[in-house]
């Protein structure tokens, strides 16, 4: 009998572990692909048209295209934990940050022959633009106490028009092939640069969480704002700073997005990415009502969403139907994480254990 309960404890522990849902989703997707076409997992080393080695294969594609999402998931997790709400303006602010970057790189001419400023200056301006948008959202949420979704609705609606206005409605094209490295390959390195950028962001946030109190304070504010204030934390500032950090993540994602094609299209760049970023946080098993969070689960969630997208493309699902499939995932997640469902499951498990005991 003691053996039985130990076993039950193990299962309960496993099921209740936060990484359980994302890992199950990951395994499920991997198995489906393995059955459908094992070549999904094949990685080949070829040369790209610039004459340099480049890895290719579906797994590389997932790592490559999942990068922006993983970076956004970092910021979105912090915002969600601290404010108990989500930023729905990230797609639009990517357009703003990207547009600001191109404005600096190309100057007032939309088709320059040479860069008007070094790439690093463009990136710094994008960071400032992203952080300014984040600060705007953060100010509304933290100091004006507006619901995060309502506060960020402002930039969600206006952001793409602002982005177009920054460049006078022109669509600049960056002439320097070096700019394309960030969204493509660095000559001689066969792994997509985006993978390194995402890895760098993950390392940075890991160090920040390890060596500062950001993680602790964010969770404290998310769990109970007034008691964290009594303990000497300034909840408004913590909320504000999470939005600014998300703004920085947005700028990095914008760099990748714009670099992929060396140009921008304000109305479609990073379209619907806010929903994917929020979904990544939810898929990681984090409560969307704030409080405790697991950063690694969110990042894993981001790659799983890209895995799902790549799989659906492979299965010839029409790309305008992708959102519907993601919606199904959201519904399942929301239902599974609902307290009513959890209670029901635990009761069911108890009854199951009881009958087993009686039989034993």
């Amino acid at each position: 009998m003691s053996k039985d309960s130990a076993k039950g404890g193990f299962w309960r522990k496993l099921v209740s572990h936060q990484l359980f849902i994302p890992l199950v989703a990951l395994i499920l997707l991997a198995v489906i692909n393995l059955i459908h076409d094992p070549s999904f997992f094949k990685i080949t080393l070829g040369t790209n048209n610039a004459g340099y080695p480049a890895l290719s294969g579906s797994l590389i594609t997932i790592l490559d295209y999942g990068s922006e999402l993983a970076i956004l998931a970092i910021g979105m997790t912090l915002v969600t934990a601290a404010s108990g709400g989500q930023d729905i303006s990230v797609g639009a602010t990517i357009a703003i940050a990207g547009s600001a970057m191109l404005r600096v790189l190309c100057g007032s001419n939309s088709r320059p022959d040479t860069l008007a400023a070094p790439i690093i200056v463009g990136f710094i301006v994008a960071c400032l633009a992203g952080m300014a948008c984040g600060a705007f959202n953060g100010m509304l949420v933290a100091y004006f106490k507006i619901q995060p979704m309502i506060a960020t609705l402002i930039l969600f609606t206006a952001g793409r028009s602002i982005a177009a206005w920054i460049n006078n409605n022109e669509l600049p094209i960056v002439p320097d092939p070096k700019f394309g490295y960030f969204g493509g390959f660095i000559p001689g390195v066969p792994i997509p640069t985006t993978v390194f950028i995402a890895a760098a962001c993950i390392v940075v946030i890991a160090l920040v969480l390890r060596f500062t109190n950001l993680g602790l304070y964010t969770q404290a504010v998310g769990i109970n704002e007034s008691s964290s204030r009594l303990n000497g934390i300034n909840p408004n500032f913590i909320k504000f700073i999470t939005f600014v950090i998300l703004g920085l993540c947005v700028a990095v994602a914008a760099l990748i997005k714009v670099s992929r094609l060396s140009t921008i299209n304000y109305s479609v760049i990073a379209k619907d990415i806010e929903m994917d970023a929020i979904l990544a946080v939810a898929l990681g098993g984090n409560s969307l009502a704030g409080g405790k969070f697991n950063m690694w689960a969110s990042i894993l969630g981001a790659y799983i969403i890209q895995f799902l997208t790549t799989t659906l493309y492979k299965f010839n699902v029409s790309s305008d139907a992708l959102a519907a499939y993601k919606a199904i995932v959201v519904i399942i997640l929301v239902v599974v994480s609902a307290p009513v469902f959890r209670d029901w499951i635990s009761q069911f498990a108890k009854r199951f254990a009881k009958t087993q005991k009686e039989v034993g």
Partner: protein
Amino acid sequence: MKKKLLSVLLTGVVAAGMLAGCGQDATAQAAAEAAAVSEAVDEAVAEAVVEEAVSEAVDEAVAEAASGELIKVGIINNDPNESGYRTANDADLKAMFNEENGYDASFAYSLKNDEQIAAAQKFIQDEVDYLLLSAADTAGWDSVLQDANDAGISVILFDRTIDADPSLYVASIVSDMAKEGQNAVDWLASQDLDEYNIIHLQGVMGSAAQQGRTGALDEKAAAEDNWNIVKQQTAEWNAEKAQQIVQSVIDSGDKFNVIYAENDDMAKGAVAALDAAGISHGVGKDVIVMGFDCNEWALEELLNGDWNFDQQCNPFQASYIDEIIKKLENGETIDEKVIVMDEKGFDASSISQDDVDTYGI
């Protein structure tokens, strides 16, 4: 306290928005106020301050009268940031429909049909003289256009046709999308490949451009044995999506030798995926790249031999529309209801720098 302050702020913002949104109402109000002031002046002694107010009011009244002579047009278009085509189209319209040319134009933009219909209803309420429309979707316009006709508003379609009774509009200045598609498919057929394995990147499903450009290719692929469509997928005019879709085909190892992208942006996305995978493209290379719209940068790709074909889609309809409105204002009748604009296809082997400068948008 904070809440009160916030609500006051919000009210202010909303009020400002309403004023900005309903310019007409604002000027009407101003005129009414002006009238009130002038009445007051008749009665009262002319004080210096009042005099100033009157002269201001008179100025406004004059401006009001001048705007009454302008032809009032409501223009419903797709989002100008959607593509280079749309940016050129919007710039062309704005250059034509302004006060200098005798027009009082209001613009509404949306990529969504329902929002466009709502905008049309608003223009009808505003009593515009002409409603110019580039519909996001071909369906669903009958009732709102009927309302426009009942209100005595002439409807002119530009750029895109709709599935509605032709009696509902006075003229339609369009690109013949089916002809564009046919042009492109004919060019592709003239390449005489042994086998055509095509990745077909479609625009937003249901738009006239998508339907016309898809129709020609579908028909040909069904008729010929050696024409296979490896992948037919909508990338919604979006370069990023096109890149991912082509990447997924490359990853799956399916063979293809033609990219048929229904606009230049998607062709660009597809080419980015080809470049990363080391697949050569362009004149005399492994994969033929075809685009639509003739953006300047796309024609430059043709000039470099990196793409093979680009089909023009003429965005400059404003002068045609202007001509029709002038005719209607003079009481003339419109002989031809549907005006199809001239459109060319460009082959990378014959394109010149002059073509790029002339036809690039």
